[in-house]
């Protein structure tokens, strides 16, 4: 933030700063102790949770008679117990990728429309409606998806099968209803749209007016302004917003559980029912699972945790790498 150093205010007077240092007031010390204490407490709670989960996961995995990473089965109650996360990892990642591919461009488009194109009278209520969409509980999206969306997507599925079948992924083997990973991806896209739109819109509104006016002064059209000043400035913001959305998509439970017709098979044919996600599997198996089965589910949850961690780490890395080139420093 180079701009923040260009201040006209004089540097803080020397004597005051020097005096504040040695003279620690009791209030300061109490506050320091409190904040340090809560920081340590937070770390300890996190460590305790992580320890508990890893312990339970270890208990389960040590008794697993299949390969935890590659087995296409989930039967911890069986004799011998066999379970693996391959299908779940595949389903989680594929549905999230579909969701991101649909949601990010649309969300950026909506955010641009609200922040730069829409008349003010329309922009405020529109932003407000998008906000509201984020507040709808996921089970409601799930029910809406199962009752309304699935029958409507049957037609789209047939169309995709007919004209895009050569792509392999859109080749549909059976004629079951559209309760597949593709539908889940579309539903997830709708669910993560509001959060991405909101954050992106906020970022677009932060673009310095000077930049835009400068571009306009040079004779740029509105689209050129957006391309030259708004998008570069907002790039890291868009990435952060997408990661927030992705986090939601990866962990979405109830909506997926209601809409998907899960099975423990990996299929590249996205339009055939099947697959599963971590969260959906936990939700549907938890009720009837015995103690060991629950440990196994916890183990699968830990894998989801690791995947989320990796994704967030990658996003932070991308943002950090781009920061020096982004409009924020111009």
């Amino acid at each position, binding site marked *: 933030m180079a701009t923040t150093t260009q201040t006209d205010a004089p540097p803080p007077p020397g004597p005051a700063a020097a005096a504040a240092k040695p003279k620690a007031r009791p209030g300061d010390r109490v506050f320091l102790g409190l904040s340090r204490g809560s920081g340590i407490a937070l770390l300890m709670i996190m460590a305790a949770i992580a320890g508990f989960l890893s312990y339970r996961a270890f208990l389960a995995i040590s008794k697993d008679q299949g390969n935890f990473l590659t087995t296409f089965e*989930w*039967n911890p*109650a*069986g004799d011998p117990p066999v379970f693996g996360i391959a299908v779940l990892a595949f389903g989680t990642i594929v549905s999230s990728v579909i969701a991101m591919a649909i949601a990010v461009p649309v969300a950026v488009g909506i955010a641009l429309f609200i922040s730069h194109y829409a008349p003010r009278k329309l922009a*405020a209520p529109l*932003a*407000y409606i998008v*906000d*509201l969409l*984020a*507040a*709808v*509980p996921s*089970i*409601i999206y799930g029910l809406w998806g*199962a*009752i309304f969306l699935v*029958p409507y997507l049957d037609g789209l599925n047939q169309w995709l099968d007919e004209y895009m079948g050569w792509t392999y992924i859109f080749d549909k083997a*059976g*004629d*079951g*209803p559209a*309760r597949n990973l593709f539908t889940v991806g579309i539903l997830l896209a709708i669910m993560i749209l509001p959060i991405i739109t909101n954050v992106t819109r906020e970022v677009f509104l932060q673009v310095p007016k000077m930049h835009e006016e400068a571009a306009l002064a040079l004779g740029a059209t509105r689209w050129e302004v957006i391309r030259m000043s708004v998008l570069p400035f907002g790039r890291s913001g868009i990435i952060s917003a997408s990661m927030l959305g992705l986090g939601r998509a990866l962990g979405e439970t109830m909506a997926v*559980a*209601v809409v*998907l*017709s*899960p*099975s423990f*098979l990996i299929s590249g044919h996205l339009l055939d*029912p099947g697959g599963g996600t971590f969260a959906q599997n936990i939700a*549907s*198996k938890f*009720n*009837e*699972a*015995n*103690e060991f*089965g629950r440990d196994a589910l916890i183990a699968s949850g830990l894998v989801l945790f690791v995947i989320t961690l990796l994704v967030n780490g990658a996003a932070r890395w991308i943002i950090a790498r781009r920061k020096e080139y982004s409009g924020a420093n111009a």
Partner: protein
Amino acid sequence: MKLQRKNGLRATALGALAVSGALVLTACGSDDNTGGAGSAGEKTTAASNITCDDAKGQLLAAGSTAQKNAMDLWVKNFQAACSGVEVNYQAIGSGGGITKFTQGQVAFAGSDSALKPEEVEESKKVCKTGQGINLPMVGGPVAIGYNLSGVDNLILDAPTLAKIFDTKIKKWNDPAIAKLNPGVSLPGTTIQAFHRSDESGTTQNLHKYLSEAAPAEWKHDPKSKSWEAPGGQAASGSSGVASSVKGTEGAIGYFELSYATAQKISTVKLDTGASAPVEATTENASKAIAAAKVKGTGNDLALSLDYKTQADGAYPIILVTYEIACDKGNKAETLPALKAFLNYTVSDEGQKVLSDAGYAPLPTEIAAKVREIVPTLS
């Protein structure tokens, strides 16, 4: 900026309203689909002779969702008669119920399957002087519902059913189906076989039925609570399967009878080898349960169901759910309430309300045995 923050606040307020509204709405969204529940309850409380003895306090229970609707009726009637008792049954699933029971959190558990030997061992910790026993309490037919326009009287037998659910028979006009349904014009629609995506005692009972009545066709693990066969499609909960069948042309699926009656889904008649194909009704299920043998020892009444029964009018795809309690060593403060409540549920009056809710009353011999054991709980 200021304007925006205000907007945000208002959005959160409205959001909160939406969330709480949704919560209120979903609160009544359980799978209670027994339309006649209210009237059945009124009928029985009018002529109630429930004995409360000195039951009081709170009676906690948890377990099977399959008997939730029956439990709701019983709890309502029982609490109306015995004002000092509050019975709280959480329908969290059989597995969860047994876990809660062996941890001593509930006075009894409801379960779709009897305790396994290792679970009996574990129950000795809670029961101290005794052990957990299974008391059969609610039976019910698992109906095979289908959606096939123009066909309203479909007859199937166990081997055909096994092949359908194993996706070996793929079209409705398959010769195997046609042979069982002479004179019926079957369409060439693809069969969409639906099963449960969650683990369930209903699935387990269908597995057991198929592997006993059609051992050559059904090779999957009969004890598994999750669906074993590849292919087909899944939906969550009996309600999910039922609505999927209702909404999909050419679909077939299994669920408790009450879901079929509530959504007006046609059910398959089974050719069991009896003189006539058997329809899924509560009476026919009771007849099939009567063929069961007690396999538990002592006070344990775990049943071994006869899925191969060929008795006339006996519908063999049945589910029997148990109440699991300690034979000795129940907690002193809940014991009177436990005994009074179970006494009521197994009484003629308690069993009579079941058929209104789509369940099958226990056959008289088994009910008599349960009635002998409940008073001896200590």
